[in-house]
């Protein structure tokens, strides 16, 4: 009996941390003001449990970009922050600003719904230094894959931005064939990155075109800053090949974010293939 109740607790915990769990980062940017606390901005970012959050904060003399990553460990959660900062340290002889760049990592163990206080510009004891309050929440969400961001800026003098950083497990790709001013019927497909190619047939003016398409992830960004901030996280690439082509030989590759913008690839037949990448719908 004891064993079965233990198993049910383990199963419940596993279910909470599985793909159906949604993670939310709640943020408040606070500036101390004569003993009171003045909320400059607030917002929330949510997504699947492996979602990261990118926070950007700029003032006249400093700029901080942080990528927060969360790893659930039992009832607690490990919160890691990859910090990339630029600070103005003076002016050159010709009056141009001189900036200093720095990158470092911070890691902290918290429990769900704990409030973590982040001092992005350091100097905890410094009077007037603003801080960011971060609360992590999780809830069951039934497999919703797309991220969501909400944002409220109370003081427009602070440049503050929140972005969800989610590596898509699958993507919705809508294919069209274009010839002159004629467009084929859209052909939507749900593709999973790094899976074997799928056959797609597009018909335009009675002529059928068969293509092999597969989804891949792009090469990692070359700059450590871009890589560390996960700028390419939601980029996918569609490899297009002719049916009789030997392995490795493609007609081309289209890369883009999941942002509903059509991208074009000219085909040897004279037609143009357009691919629109978007987040997949509910399952």
């Amino acid at each position, binding site marked *: 009996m004891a064993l079965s109740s233990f198993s049910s607790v383990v199963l419940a915990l596993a279910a909470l941390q599985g793909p159906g769990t949604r993670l939310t980062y709640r943020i408040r940017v606070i500036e101390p003001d004569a003993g009171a606390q003045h909320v400059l901005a607030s917002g929330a970012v949510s997504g699947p449990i492996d979602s990261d959050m990118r926070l950007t904060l700029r003032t006249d003399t400093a700029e901080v970009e942080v990528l927060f990553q969360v790893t659930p460990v039992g009832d607690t959660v490990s919160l890691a922050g990859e910090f990339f900062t630029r600070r103005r340290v003076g002016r050159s002889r010709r009056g141009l600003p001189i900036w200093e760049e*720095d990158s470092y990592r911070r890691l902290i163990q918290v429990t769900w719904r704990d409030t973590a206080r982040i001092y992005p510009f*350091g100097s905890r004891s410094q009077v007037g230094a603003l801080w960011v309050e971060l609360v992590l929440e999780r809830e069951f969400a039934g497999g919703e894959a797309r991220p969501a961001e909400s944002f409220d800026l109370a003081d427009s003098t602070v440049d503050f931005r929140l972005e969800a950083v989610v590596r898509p497990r699958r993507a919705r790709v809508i294919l069209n064939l274009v010839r002159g001013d004629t467009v084929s019927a859209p052909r939507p497909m749900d593709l999973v990155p790094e899976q074997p190619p799928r056959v797609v047939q597009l018909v335009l003016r009675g002529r059928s075109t068969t293509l092999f398409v597969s989804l891949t992830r792009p090469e990692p960004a070359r700059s450590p800053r871009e890589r560390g901030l996960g700028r390419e996280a939601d980029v996918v690439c569609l490899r297009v090949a002719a049916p009789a082509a030997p392995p490795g030989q493609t007609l081309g590759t289209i890369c883009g974010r999941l942002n509903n913008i059509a991208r074009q690839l000219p085909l040897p037949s004279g037609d143009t293939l357009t691919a629109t990448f978007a987040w997949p719908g509910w399952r």
Partner: protein
Amino acid sequence: MADTHEHWLKQIDAELDGELPLAERAALAKHLATCSHCAGARASQLEVRVALARSAGNPHAFVVPRPSIRAGTLALWVAAALASGLVGGWFASQRWGGPGGGSALEETRGTIVVQ
């Protein structure tokens, strides 16, 4: 003293002709290490011999060039360069300041604490 130099100059001549026995060559080497006058005379002799050999059709004859800067002069230049570098660095630090505006790097870095 002049007699002594005469003696060593003869020894140098014999050494360059390859006629000096091993023990006397060692004694000459020991003397040359301490006597700059004889060392200079030997170098001049060697240069004359190389010039003669070249004019006689031996293009491969060569001599290691004499150092054009003396050790004392070199030391003086090194000391002058170090001093000017220190003065320049101090002036630049006073004028434009060092990196980080003087505060410790760790103080300017972000921190995370649990409330």
